């Protein structure tokens, strides 16, 4: 009996390790600041996590397929700047699809390099991080991009609107998460993504067109970036060239925090969403507690490692690793 229930708890923990870590932090922050769990704050955190979150959804595909994408931050800056610029030039109705096309082209280019030419994804996307930044600076002349008539445009709906009492960014994030979650878990394409990341050679031997799958993952990722750029642009109706700078590491951290392995072949959309929320709530929680920003750095360090440690310790049923 005893060993049964022990095993039961063990197995439960093994599945929910990251959720439990999440719960622990929430409780901790709530004790530290009563407003942490207020509806406005929760809503606020989820809303501002939505941008990071949307990008993380796409990167989850890329990571599961066994690759990295460090270009998403700089690509997001590009999308934001482009859509804001075109908004005034050709109007939002055309600006949005135009921006999506341009962003998807960037994604397709990366997908071509990594998928078909089989170039190392870390360097390719690091190179693209820099190249796209250069592109954005050239496009904008390095200037801030702002919509002239901020009051009069319906464009603000994506970032500032709300429907059914829920902010639109959250709706977009959740809908996209549900959609991509289904694609990943329930479609042949999703299955192939896992196979390609788990063992690319075996996937090829199974008749899976590995290059195409990798290509599509990057296109998917750039699509998510475009959505994130849209929300970002709409949220502030103006932007700096550097708006997405540095987000690539946060995005990656969220995906990994959710339990995807950098080696590929594992991870889920649901877990990525948890990873995103953990990061968002940590950042917000620490701000609310009002620690110096550098103390926040140190605490974030501890939390990230603890969360992942708890997650994998639960899976292996032991606190310490088995590494000799």
């Amino acid at each position, binding site marked *: 009996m005893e060993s049964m229930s022990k095993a039961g708890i063990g197995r439960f923990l093994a599945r929910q390790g990251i959720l439990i870590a999440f719960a622990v932090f929430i409780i901790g922050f709530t004790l530290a600041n009563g407003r942490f769990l207020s509806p406005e704050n929760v809503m606020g955190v989820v809303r501002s996590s939505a941008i990071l979150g949307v990008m993380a959804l796409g990167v989850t595909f890329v990571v599961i397929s066994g690759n990295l994408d460090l270009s998403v931050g700089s690509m997001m800056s590009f999308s934001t700047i482009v859509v804001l610029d075109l908004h005034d030039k050709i109007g939002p109705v055309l600006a949005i699809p135009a921006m999506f096309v341009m962003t998807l082209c960037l994604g397709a280019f990366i997908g071509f390099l990594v998928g078909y030419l089989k170039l190392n994804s870390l360097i390719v996307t690091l190179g693209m991080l820099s190249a796209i930044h250069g592109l954005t600076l050239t496009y904008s002349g390095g200037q801030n991009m702002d919509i002239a008539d901020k009051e009069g445009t319906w464009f603000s709906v994506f970032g500032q609107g709300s429907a059914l009492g829920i902010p639109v960014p959250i709706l977009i994030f959740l809908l996209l998460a549900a959609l991509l979650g289904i694609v990943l878990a329930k479609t*042949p394409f999703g*299955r192939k993504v896992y196979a390609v990341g788990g063992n690319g050679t*075996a996937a090829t031997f199974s008749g899976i067109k590995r290059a195409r799958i990798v290509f599509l993952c990057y296109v998917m990722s750039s699509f998510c970036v475009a959505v994130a750029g849209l929300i970002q642009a709409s949220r502030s109706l103006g932007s700096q060239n550097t708006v997405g700078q540095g987000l690539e590491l946060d995005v990656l951290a969220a995906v990994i925090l959710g339990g995807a392995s950098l080696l590929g072949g594992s991870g889920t959309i649901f877990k990525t969403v948890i990873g995103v929320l953990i990061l968002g709530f940590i950042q917000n929680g620490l701000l609310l507690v009002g620690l110096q920003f550098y103390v926040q750095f140190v605490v974030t360090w501890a939390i990230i490692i603890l969360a992942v440690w708890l997650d994998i310790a639960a899976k292996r049923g032991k606190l310490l690793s088995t590494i000799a």
Partner: protein
Amino acid sequence: MSDQTPALRLEGIVKTFPGVRALDGVSLSVMPGEVHALMGENGAGKSTLMKVLGGIYQPQEGRIIVEEVPTVMTSPLQAKSKGIVFIHQELSLAEELTVAENIYLGELPRRSFGRVDWEKLYTQTDAILAKLKVGFNAKTIVGDLSIANQQMVEIARALTVDAKAVIFDEPTASLTDAEKVVLFDVISDLQRQGVGIIYISHRMEEIFKITDRISVLRDGSYRGTLETRNTTEEEVTQLMIGRALDLSRNESNHELGDVALEVRGLSCGHMFKDVSFDVRRGEVLGFYGLVGAGRTEIVETLFGLREPSGGKILLDGEEVRISSPADAISKGISLVPEDRKGQGLVLGMNCRDNMTLPQVGELSSGPFVAPGAETAIFDKYKEKLDIRTPGWKQTVGNLSGGNQQKIVIAKWLSMHPKVLIVDEPTRGIDVGSKSEIHNLIRDLAAQGYAVIVVSSEMPEVLHVSDRIVAMFSGRVMRTFTSEEVTEESLIQAISGITATEKVA
């Protein structure tokens, strides 16, 4: 023998994994200078028992006693220090390193300041390699070797230390006959030095040739030990699978159909040249040859994995270009690859999804995968091939070697291809399942499929094939019909002797 102290004793070993009781109170003792066979069906627990002995797994219950001293094996390192050497079933090599570094992995000879003593390393290695009569040297990079040669590197490790006991876990699964002879010499050398040897294999003829006693496991429990001299294959099989085995060939007298696949003058760089053959519907065509003869490269070319440099391929009489495995599959060709871990399976994925991977798109209903249909396929082949796993959700990497191989075979059988190619299909498969797979291959032919079987096991090719293509050094030496083939003529053909005769 019985009044000697055993080199090694295992008592009441219990080891469980989630949902699996892999070992259920197993005991075993090995005498110095004895070759002790460990037999059992795929998934019976042989490798797990050895991993317990080798310090890789910790058992829940039971004791390990080395020369009458109870010992807790906490790590491979410790097992090694107790004189236990483990030659793994799955290759355990660092491919980017040299042969010498691999053989002495973990115990490179040192000079002062932690430097490697290269001279000593290479001379010692070369001495070992000389004993093994292999065609590569100490400085060869392991990744450049064929699987068979990599297996020889693995075996060479047994000769580096003063071992009390050496465990060979299916060492011959990817060796050809010549290498097997060398291995058996090595084993008898060790035996003479008083080393206790545990030898795991599914090949009866080997077991009866080299072992002294045979212990049998079934479903994780110990079934008994037999003196090799005083027992028979039937008795062992009976103990292993609980019934007698029907080894007769499934001779359905079906008509051969049209030529399904025809290959004319096919070449690929220096790997094979001017290869021609054909396979009819209803026919099993065997390919036999030495390591490096180019058989695998031929079938890889047929499967769209290599670009031929000349010649043509005809399917149903029409010339085709096969650009990729996806293309091959759509044209009705399937390939069971020779390297199950590297090419056959996504180890982190579950059994069912691995099995249905090539057809996941076809099985889908609307935009979604169809778990029901997939599970049905899984259940069917689990039954048909007797795959031992707690359920379809089990991660393939957790299956025993033989059961993994069965998943790979099922994966391609379930595609119902026009031309089925199997490369070393029964590597690591137990006797019972092996004859089951051979019967399946014959059945498929009877149903009108064209089948190509590449194998390095002569009994296997002889048993399943209607005709046999003998290859030597990238060329077809001769094609035999099952009536005309003899073991001698086949060996001659694959050694290139026919070639010189023809020239002369």
